[in-house]
């Protein structure tokens, strides 16, 4: 109790210095939290992947399509509960800056495979009745103000022309990490139009999404599907949904790694600043430490005082930094738009922030505590005059 009194009062002795130090820690913890959230967002797709879904694509690369005829054959493989398919549309909504994922899907089977997309039955019915209907995610709807009944025009890049849709429903995610920034429409609409403008490209599918009867069948079904189409015109590559998502991440891995490194760098920078502060403070108080030692206080109580003060300052800064991370993340997500479909500060990040703050406080106190414990009383007293 007594030590707490000393620690708190000492911490507030130099209000400007303590204030600046706390500010520095707040900035560092905030930056750290934001960066880690960015890294998490990168992996969000893989995190949200289901263990009972597989993705099959053309073995050459994602830009090559698969024939529609594969669907029936995949359906017959043992372990497969259902099959659906999707095409990446890649259209432009007004300007290129407004990026969000658009998929032409076989609606009935697709939404059955994604129970985490929650749609009201009425809206679903409207969607099924309108061939040009579209279902959009809640996040997308809030960014662009889409409501059921709105007309949306997308300028095709892969599939040329201007495509008109009518929003028929808005889906919510079952969990915080579900991606609600997607735009779904009927594959039939895509196919019919392509049959008219470019028949060679009709009846083709971007990826097949396969639902397994149980997660344990994943390896067997994966092998079976790829074996079925080996040596055909369009060989397939099947992987779990998580592996598929991670594939994208690994292609931009360099950037994610860089961001992770930078997030740790920020902690080191502020550690240097705080260590400096504590060192200066300890040096200025060497007469006091010498006096305490003369009175009979051992090196441990002295070290405890210094650690206590450092940790107290770090704790204040850390708590403030953690609290600010949430509104900051929201601002950031708003700025970046739909580049990161999921942008949540999760509990793991908060724990890392807390640990970082504690680490900063502890490391910063090490050298000063050591010096204070070792100071020779006579020398320390001499400093006073």
């Amino acid at each position, binding site marked *: 109790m007594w030590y707490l009194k000393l620690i708190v009062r000492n911490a507030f002795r130099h209000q400007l210095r303590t204030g600046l130090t706390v500010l520095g820690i707040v900035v560092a913890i905030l930056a750290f939290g934001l960066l880690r959230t960015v890294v998490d967002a990168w992996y969000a797709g893989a995190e949200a992947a289901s263990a009972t879904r597989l993705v099959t694509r053309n073995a050459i690369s994602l830009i090559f399509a698969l024939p529609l005829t594969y669907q029936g054959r995949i359906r017959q493989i043992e372990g497969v509960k259902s099959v659906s398919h999707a095409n990446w549309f890649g259209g432009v909504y007004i300007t290129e800056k407004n990026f969000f994922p658009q998929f032409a899907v076989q609606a009935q089977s697709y939404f059955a495979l994604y129970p985490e997309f929650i749609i009201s039955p009425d809206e679903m019915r409207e969607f099924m009745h309108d061939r040009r209907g579209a279902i959009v995610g809640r996040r997308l709807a809030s960014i662009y103000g889409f409501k059921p009944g709105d007309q949306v025009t997308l300028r095709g890049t892969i599939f040329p022309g201007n495509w008109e849709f009518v929003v028929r429903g808005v889906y919510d995610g079952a969990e915080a990490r579900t991606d609600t920034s997607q735009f779904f429409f009927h594959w039939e609409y895509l196919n019919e139009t392509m049959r008219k403008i470019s028949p060679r490209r009709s009846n083709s599918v971007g990826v097949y999404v396969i639902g397994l009867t149980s997660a344990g069948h994943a390896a067997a079904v994966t092998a079976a599907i790829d074996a079925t189409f080996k040596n055909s015109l369009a060989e397939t590559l099947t992987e779990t949904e998580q592996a598929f998502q991670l594939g994208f991440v690994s292609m931009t891995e360099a950037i994610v790694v860089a961001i992770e490194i930078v997030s740790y760098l920020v902690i080191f920078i502020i550690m240097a600043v705080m260590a400096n502060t504590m060192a200066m403070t300890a040096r200025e108080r060497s*007469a006091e430490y010498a006096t305490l030692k003369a009175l009979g206080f051992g090196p441990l109580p002295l070290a405890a005082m210094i650690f206590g003060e450092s940790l107290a300052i770090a704790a204040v800064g850390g708590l403030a930094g953690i609290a600010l991370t949430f509104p900051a993340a929201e601002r950031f997500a708003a700025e970046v738009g739909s580049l990161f479909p999921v942008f949540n500060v999760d509990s793991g990040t908060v724990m890392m922030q807390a640990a970082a703050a504690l680490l900063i406080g502890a490391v910063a106190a090490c050298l000063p505590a050591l010096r204070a414990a070792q100071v020779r009383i006579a020398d320390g007293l001499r400093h006073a005059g």
Partner: protein
Amino acid sequence: MPSSTESIVEIRNLVKSYRRGDQIVPVLSGITFDIAAGDYVALMGPSGSGKSTLLNMIAGIDKPDSGSLRVAGTDITALNESDLAAWRARNVGFIFQFYNLMPVLTAFENIELPLLLTDLSARERGEHVAAALAMMSLSDRSDHYPSELSGGQQQRVAIARAIITDPAILVADEPTGDLDRVSAAEILHLIERLNRELGKTVILVTHDPHAAGKARTVRHLEKGELSEA
């Protein structure tokens, strides 16, 4: 007159040198003398004579290079750091030139500080501190911070702190060096009372003959060697 002929401080052949860069500067070259219990000793000498160093040795806050030092019945040269710290807490009261009070603690809390090393309860500590404050006529200043007290008042707080654990010896290094004449006289009077009424052994270091005026025994230190007054 010393109240007993028993020596509370026994010094034999104390030697101490300091390193300054790559030079070794001898400070004490073989000091031998005794201090009787209850005595009031003034150690005098010019600057650099080693008087503060000698005081530091007796108080257990510095160690000699060689020689023996028995204070209050213990050979303190043989004690390790933590035992020495515990010894100091029980046996020595410090009075410094610049008071050395904790700026963030009130007068009351500064005086209470040494009692934290004992196992008295908070209430018991409070009683002791109140008594000390009364003795120093500072009861009305008990929750003032050092920055709110005059030099003389601060030194009185320091003296209260020095006697709160009822130590055997009081060491004072230029206690009046930073005070005006009136406050200085007050402080010297207080110290003399502590010696006369409470029987505390006082060892005072000063270069000012006026400050040494109240002492019963005066020893001179010159270039690390002791001489009789």
